[in-house]
């Protein structure tokens, strides 16, 4: 561990010395994450697992403002903990509304329960308002400045508490408590895994089509806490969050050539994925974060390599005169889906993690590009090129192909942590304007994500711990 850290520092120093341009495109580093501590565990029995989406799409959920025991000042909100409780309820309402499965009613059109009513809801009153589900909660500020947020889900008709949980967060992380509460409600009502408390790395784009500025940027799953990580003097592309959110792999032209860098979020420093004169592209993490896949062109021909995340010797996984590029691990790390034009056009292939048993899986006409294995393991999302670009999914053997989007150029899918939603970027014909969109696995609930400027190459990270 110490040796590895020392080695990383040494290689960083070496890299910095040999490439003085390194730091020139980087913004100030992000503040370190502080942990979210769970203080109460769920008490409700998980006996109701609803699988028919139509059955829960019309559930009316009331989400009144979270109560506070006493008004206190907090860095999280200029107007104190009471106003913060309303903001938390607004964030939860927006989360549940935006994924299209629920019809929540938020705090701005609801009465506010007193602190004492959070654990003893006025079922009769809520039933009279037509609410089937009720989310109540509280926020209190501790003397150390940290916030305690409690979250309760009630079934109004059954007059029963379904689930409850609480979290202690730094004031700056108050939105994470709102996302944790959203995840708790979503999981309890759908039987699906959570996804709201997660982050997205992407490329922010500005400027005309022939002089496009492309910057590395990050944001929460709902677009909040947006930050630019590079300044834009060098083109940045194709980021990937590490599974523990401590690093981002991405491509930068900062030294004039396309090369993959490992950006350390805490320190704001970056190192080359491999010291090499050849261009490196298409970085990917293994699910355990211990390995990095990248593609490297040698004398013009691109193949896929694997290298330990701590550095060392790269192992060549493909060896083919065609272009082999990208790659996405199965969740258990045993297999990799990648794209290759060895057959004459871009198609998707699966191989073992050591490069053995390479086998084409896409045979449905058109081309198969940018395959991404679902975190659930059962599906592969990809860019289907058949004239236009569309986001499609297939099973891991290449069967049951389904096209989910109908844009002119919908490219580079990335999975939500729970494997239920796919984000991608859509480019407009002629203008080249781009934006991040999402769609669910049924092809429904397509929507554009709010970003401060144009956006491409979304990379959805895992659920945060």
């Amino acid at each position: 561990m110490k040796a590895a850290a020392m080695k990383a520092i040494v290689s960083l120093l070496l890299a910095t010395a040999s490439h003085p341009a390194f730091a020139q495109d980087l913004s100030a580093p992000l503040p370190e994450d502080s942990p979210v501590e769970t203080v109460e565990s769920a008490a409700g029995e998980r006996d109701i697992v609803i699988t028919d989406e139509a059955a829960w799409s019309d559930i009316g959920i009331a989400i009144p403002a979270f109560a506070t025991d006493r008004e206190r000042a907090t860095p999280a909100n200029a107007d104190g903990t009471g106003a913060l409780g309303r903001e938390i309820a607004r964030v939860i309402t927006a989360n549940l509304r935006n994924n299209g499965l629920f019809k929540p009613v938020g705090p701005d059109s609801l009465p506010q329960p007193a602190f004492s009513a959070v654990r003893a809801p006025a079922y009769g009153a809520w039933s009279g308002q037509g609410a089937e589900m009720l989310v109540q909660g509280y926020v209190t500020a501790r003397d150390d400045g940290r916030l305690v947020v409690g979250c309760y889900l009630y079934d109004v008709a059954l007059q029963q508490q379904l689930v409850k949980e609480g979290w202690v967060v730094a004031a700056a992380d108050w939105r994470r408590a709102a996302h944790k509460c959203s995840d708790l409600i979503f999981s309890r009502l759908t039987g699906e895994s959570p996804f709201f408390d997660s982050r997205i790395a992407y490329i922010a784009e500005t400027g005309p089509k022939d002089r496009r500025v492309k910057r590395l940027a990050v944001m929460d799953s709902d677009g909040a806490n947006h930050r630019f990580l590079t300044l834009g003097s060098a083109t940045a592309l194709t980021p990937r969050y590490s599974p523990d959110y401590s690093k981002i792999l991405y491509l930068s032209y900062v030294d004039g050539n396309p090369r993959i860098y490992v950006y350390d979020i805490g320190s704001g420093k970056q190192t080359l994925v491999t010291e090499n004169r050849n261009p490196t592209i298409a970085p990917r993490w293994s699910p355990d974060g211990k390995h990095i896949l990248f593609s490297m062109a040698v004398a013009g021909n691109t193949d896929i390599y694997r290298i330990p995340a701590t550095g060392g010797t790269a192992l060549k996984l493909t060896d083919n005169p065609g272009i082999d590029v990208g790659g996405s691990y199965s969740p258990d790390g045993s297999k990799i889906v990648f794209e290759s034009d060895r057959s004459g056009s871009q198609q998707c292939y699966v191989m073992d993690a050591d490069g053995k048993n390479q086998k084409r899986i896409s045979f449905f006409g058109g081309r198969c590009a940018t395959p991404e294995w679902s975190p659930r393991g059962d599906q592969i999302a990809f860019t289907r090129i058949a004239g236009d670009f569309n986001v499609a999914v297939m099973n891991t053997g290449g069967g049951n192909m389904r096209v989910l989007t109908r844009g002119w150029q919908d490219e580079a899918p990335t999975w939500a942590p729970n494997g239920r939603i796919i984000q991608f970027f859509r480019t407009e014909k002629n203008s080249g304007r781009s934006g991040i969109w999402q769609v669910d696995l049924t092809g429904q609930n397509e929507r554009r994500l709010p970003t401060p400027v144009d956006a491409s190459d979304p990379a959805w990270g895992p659920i945060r711990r």
Partner: protein
Amino acid sequence: MNTKLATILLLASASGLAACSKKAPDDLPPDPIQTTPTPTPTSRPVTPTGAAVGTQAHFAQAVGSSTTIYFETDRYNVDTQDAAALQAQAQYFARYPQITFTIEGHADERGTREYNIALGEKRANAAKAYLVSLGVDANRIAVVSYGKERPVALASNEAAWAQNRRAASVIIN
């Protein structure tokens, strides 16, 4: 010393340019070189005047539109017209052996981002290999791919795509 050969090659590259329309649709906009007054090959001085040796302007003055070669969709092979343009380039670089240069490989917007960087890399390296086969020292040639990130023609149609599938030799000062 090689003025006669240079003239022939310039003629060859000019005819290569005219024949370029085979690769691009009929509605291809005029090549940038044709929008500026260009002396006919027969009246053009073999030794460029105006721009300084070692600049892109001097190179472009000498070889005209042959600074750039164009590719079919998803292809990276050097065809006969590309060969004529690269011969003009090789002639120029033989005459100015002190010059180093970069070949920038590009793709049109109809491929995915990562694949297109790999494809631009193949195109630039194909051009490099051809120049090396004509006697240009490989150490003088740097290669970089921009994939679809730096189009020169901005529309989303066949004519624009044909202009963007290219490998451009560039002298960077």
